C-alpha cells in the first residue's frame, strides 16, 4: 500500500483526448438479451449496466449496439438505428453516470456472423458471399451502394450517441463481425477497392471513422476495438492465418490518423474464438442451450456431431482449449496490446481474462497497456474494482473462465452459471434473475 491507496497504477485517471476516466478499468461489451425484440431498450438493461457502475468500474462499454436492424447479432439487444431510440440512451447514460462510471456505446454491425438468424433479414451482408463458418448462415456480397449505406448508418448512430449525451463511442471492429469481414484476408475475397491489399481491406473501417468524425466533430471520444491478430490457425492448423500483428499495427496507425482516440485490443476473426473468450469449452452447456448451432444455418449436422458425439466433442474441446493452455487466460492478448502501444500515441486498452490487480497493475506500469477491459470476471464479481480498491489482489471467488455465461446467454439470462462459485444452485439462479428485480410495473411507466 502506498499513500495513494492500493494499486495506484490502476486507480489513476486515464486521459483520452476527449474523455477522462477515473481509473484504468473498463467493463467490456457484454450483455444479455434484455431488450425488446424490436430493438427498444428496457429497464432491465439499465439495471444491468448500473450494477457495474456501482461496482466501481471507470467506464462501461455498452453491449454491441446495432446501427441498423440488418446488423443485429442476436435479437433483444437495444439498437441505435433511429432517432426515437435517443431518449432511452439519455436515461441509460444518466443512470450509469449517477452510478459513477462513464458510458461508451459500442456501435456494431454483424454482417454474416450472427447467433440467431433474424426474421427481418434472411441473409446477412458481408465483404464476401461465402457463408459464415460456424453456423453456415448465408450472406450476400455488399455492393458499393450498400457499403455507403452502412457507413452512413454508423455515422448516424454516432450522431445519436452524441445527442444522447453519452461519453463516447467504440467501433466494434473485431471478433469476426462486419468490419473484421473486410479487414481479414481470411474472409475478404473481393477484387474491388475494398479487397486485396491491406490498404483496400482497411478502406471500409477508415470510411466509417471519417464519416463518424464528420457527424460528431473532433471533440467527442471515439475508440476502435480491433482483433490485433486473426489467429486463424488456433483451431484448425490447415486454416488461413488471416491478419497478422504487423498488418494490424499498420491499420491502427491509419485509424489514429483518421481520428481515433483510443484502441481496444482483442483477438480472433470469429466469435467465439479460442482466444476470446479464452477458457474452457463447456460441452454440456453448449448442447443444452446454444441450440441455434443445431437448427440454423447450413452446418447443423456437423455441429450436432461435433458438440454432442463423443469422442468428437472431446477432441473439439481439447483443440479449442489449446490456446488458453499455451498462453494462459489472464492477459492472453497483452503481447498484442504492447505491440500496438509501441506504435501509436493514443491510449491502448486490452481485453482478455483480467481479474488480478497485480497482473493489471504490472501491465500498466510496464507500458503494455493504459487500461484493461473486463467481461466475464465482472459477471462473476461486479464489484471487482471496489475489491481492488480495498486492497485485494483477486476476488475471493474468481471467474473460472468456464465460459458457461457465454453459452447460456442465448436462452437464459446472462449471468455466472458456474455452480461451484455459489453455495447452491438456488443461490445461483437467484443471483442470475436478480437483474429483473427493478423492472417497473406497467403503471409506473406512464
Amino acid at each position: 500500500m502506498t499513500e495513494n491507496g492500493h494499486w495506484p497504477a490502476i486507480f489513476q485517471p486515464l486521459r483520452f483526448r476527449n474523455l477522462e476516466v477515473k481509473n484504468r478499468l473498463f467493463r467490456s461489451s457484454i450483455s444479455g438479451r434484455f431488450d425488446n425484440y424490436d430493438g427498444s431498450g428496457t429497464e432491465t438493461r439499465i439495471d444491468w449496466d448500473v450494477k457495474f457502475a456501482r461496482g466501481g468500474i471507470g467506464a462501461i462499454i455498452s453491449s454491441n449496439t446495432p446501427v441498423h436492424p440488418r446488423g443485429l447479432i442476436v435479437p433483444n439487444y437495444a439498437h441505435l438505428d433511429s432517432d426515437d431510440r435517443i431518449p432511452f440512451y439519455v436515461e441509460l447514460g444518466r443512470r450509469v453516470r449517477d452510478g459513477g462510471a462513464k458510458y461508451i456505446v459500442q456501435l456494431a454491425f454483424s454482417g454474416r456472423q450472427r447467433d440467431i438468424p433474424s426474421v427481418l433479414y434472411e441473409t446477412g451482408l458481408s465483404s464476401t458471399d461465402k457463408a459464415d463458418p460456424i453456423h453456415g448462415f448465408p450472406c450476400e456480397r455488399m455492393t458499393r451502394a450498400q457499403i455507403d449505406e452502412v457507413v452512413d448508418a454508423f455515422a448516424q448512430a454516432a450522431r445519436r450517441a452524441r445527442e444522447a449525451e453519452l461519453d463516447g463511442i467504440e467501433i466494434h471492429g473485431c471478433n469476426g463481425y462486419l468490419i473484421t469481414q473486410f479487414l481479414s484476408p481470411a474472409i475478404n475475397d473481393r477484387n474491388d477497392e475494398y479487397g486485396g491489399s491491406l490498404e483496400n481491406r482497411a478502406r471500409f473501417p477508415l470510411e466509417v471513422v471519417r464519416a463518424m468524425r464528420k457527424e460528431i466533430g473532433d471533440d467527442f471520444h471515439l475508440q476502435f476495438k480491433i482483433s490485433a491478430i486473426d489467429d486463424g490457425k488456433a483451431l484448425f492448423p490447415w486454416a488461413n492465418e488471416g491478419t497478422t500483428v504487423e498488418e494490424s499495427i499498420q491499420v491502427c496507425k491509419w485509424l489514429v490518423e483518421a481520428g481515433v482516440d483510443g484502441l481496444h485490443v482483442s483477438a480472433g476473426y470469429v466469435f467465439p474464438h479460442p482466444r476470446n473468450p479464452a477458457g474452457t469449452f463447456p460441452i454440456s452447456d453448449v448442447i443444452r442451450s446454444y441450440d441455434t448451432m443445431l437448427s440454423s444455418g447450413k452446418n447443423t449436422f456437423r455441429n450436432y456431431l461435433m458438440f454432442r458425439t463423443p469422442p468428437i466433442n472431446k477432441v473439439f474441446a481439447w483443440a479449442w482449449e489449446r490456446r488458453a493452455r499455451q498462453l494462459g487466460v489472464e492477459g492472453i492478448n497483452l503481447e498484442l496490446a504492447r505491440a500496438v502501444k509501441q506504435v501509436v500515441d493514443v491510449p491502448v486498452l486490452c481485453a482478455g481474462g483480467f481479474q488480478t490487480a497485480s497482473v493489471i497493475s504490472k501491465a500498466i506500469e510496464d507500458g503494455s497497456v493504459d487500461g484493461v477491459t473486463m467481461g466475464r470476471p465482472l459477471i462473476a464479481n461486479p464489484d471487482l474494482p471496489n475489491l481492488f480498491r480495498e486492497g485485494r489482489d483477486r476476488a475471493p471467488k474468481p471467474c473460472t473462465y468456464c465460459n458457461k455465461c457465454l453459452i447460456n446467454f442465448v436462452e437464459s439470462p446472462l449471468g455466472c452459471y458456474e455452480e461451484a462459485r455459489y453455495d447452491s444452485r438456488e443461490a445461483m439462479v437467484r443471483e442470475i434473475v436478480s437483474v429483473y428485480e427493478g423492472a417497473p410495473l406497467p403503471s409506473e411507466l406512464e
Partner: protein
Amino acid sequence: MSSDVIFQPLRLGSLTLKNRVLRSSLAGRFDNYDGSGTPVRINWDVKFARGGVGAIISSNAPVHRRGRLVPGFALIDRDDRIPFFRELGKRVHEYDCKYIVQLNHAGRHRDIGDLEFPKGLSSTDRPEPIHGFECERMTRPQIEETVDAFAQGARRAREAGLDGVEVAGGNGVLVTQFLSSAINDRDDEYGGSLENRARFALQVVRAIRVQVGRDFYVGFKISVDECMNEVFPWLRRGNTPADSVQICKWLEEAGVDAIHITAGAAFPHPRNPPGTMPLRDLVRTYDTIAASGRYTFRNYVAFRTWPFSSIFRWQWERPVRRVGAEGINLPESRAVKEAVSIPVLCGGGFQTASVVANAITSGACDGVTIARSLLANPNLVELWAQGYDRPPRPCTYVNKCLANFLEHPLACYEESRFDSHDEMMREALRVYETAEGR
C-alpha cells in the same frame, strides 16, 4: 341475420360476457425471465380486447416456478405478482372485455428445459414423449403443495380484480398427466381407475373454490379425446370422449362453471392447433427439440431428414385432412354439452361466423374460443359484426405462429397474408411500440 347469436351475452356462472367469443390462451415470450410481467404483455392482450372479444383467457400462468412451460411468461406464483395482473385487468376492462387467468402447472411438459428445475414433476417418472424431458413421480406432499399452489393462484387472480380463472387441464400439462390413461402409471389413489386419475383435478377445483368462493368464475379446459397415438403411432390412445364426459360431470359437481373443450394429451398435437406442420420454420426455430431432452437425434432426423420429415408431416396432418381444422372439436363438445348443465366453450380453428353461429344454435357449444384466427385478425369479432362471414385474409392454419414463438415475437408469419415481408415484420413488432419505458 344468422350470426346474431354470436353477439348474445353469455352467462358463465357468476360472470356474463357481452358475446360468445373468447380469446383462447395464447401469448408470446413477452415477459421477463423471472416471471414478472411487462408492458408488452399488456399491449398484447389489449389488442384483442380492442378487437371486440367478450373475454380474454390469459396465456398459461404458472402457479409455481417449477410449473413453467417456457420462460418469458408471467407467473402468478407469489403475492407480489398481483399488482401486475391488477394493471393488466384494468387495461383490458376498458374495452368491456373480461379477463380470465389460465392457471397452469406444466408438469413434465416443457418447450425449453428449465434452468432452475431440470426435472419436472409428473404423475409418472417416464419422460415426456416429444423432447424426452426428464421428470419425477410426485409424492403425496408434492401433490398437496401443488393443489395449494393452484388455490393460491386463484386467490391472487381474485385479489387482482380479475374476472375468473381457468384450470389448464388439457394439452398434456400436469393435470392432463394425472387424467390421462396414456400417461398416468401410478398404482396409488391417484392412478389406475378413472376416478383415481381424476382425483388430482377435482382436488384442485375444490381447493380453488375454498379460496375464491362460489361467486367467481372457475373454468376447466380439458382434452376430451386424447389421441396420443396420433402424435406417435406407438403411443397408447389415452382417454376417450366417454372417459372425459364422465370427468366433466364430476367437475360440474365439484363446482366448475364451464368446460372448455380441446384435444390431445400433448402439445403441440395434430388436433391442437389443427393445421399443417411448418417444417421449414420448425427446423429453424424450434431448436429445443434438437437440443434438449433425450430424443434429440430422433427429432433431428424426424424434422430435418427427408423422407422422414415428409412422413412425419404427412402423419401429423392426417386428422385435419379427415375433418378440417375449423370446428375440429365440435363432436366432442356436443358430447360433453349433452351430459352437463354448465356452459361449454369450444376451441379449434374457428373463424367463420356462420360456422360459429351454427355450432351455438345447434347445441354443440355455448361459445367459442379462438387463438390463431385472432392472431391473424385481432378484429375478427368486429369484422363479423360488420357482416363478414370470414375475414378477407383468414388464418391459413399453417402454424408458423406457433413454430416461431420460441425465438421470435408471437405473430402471424404467413407472408402470403401480407403485402410484403416488411409489412409482416412491422405488424409483428408493433406489440413493442409503446413498450419503451420512460
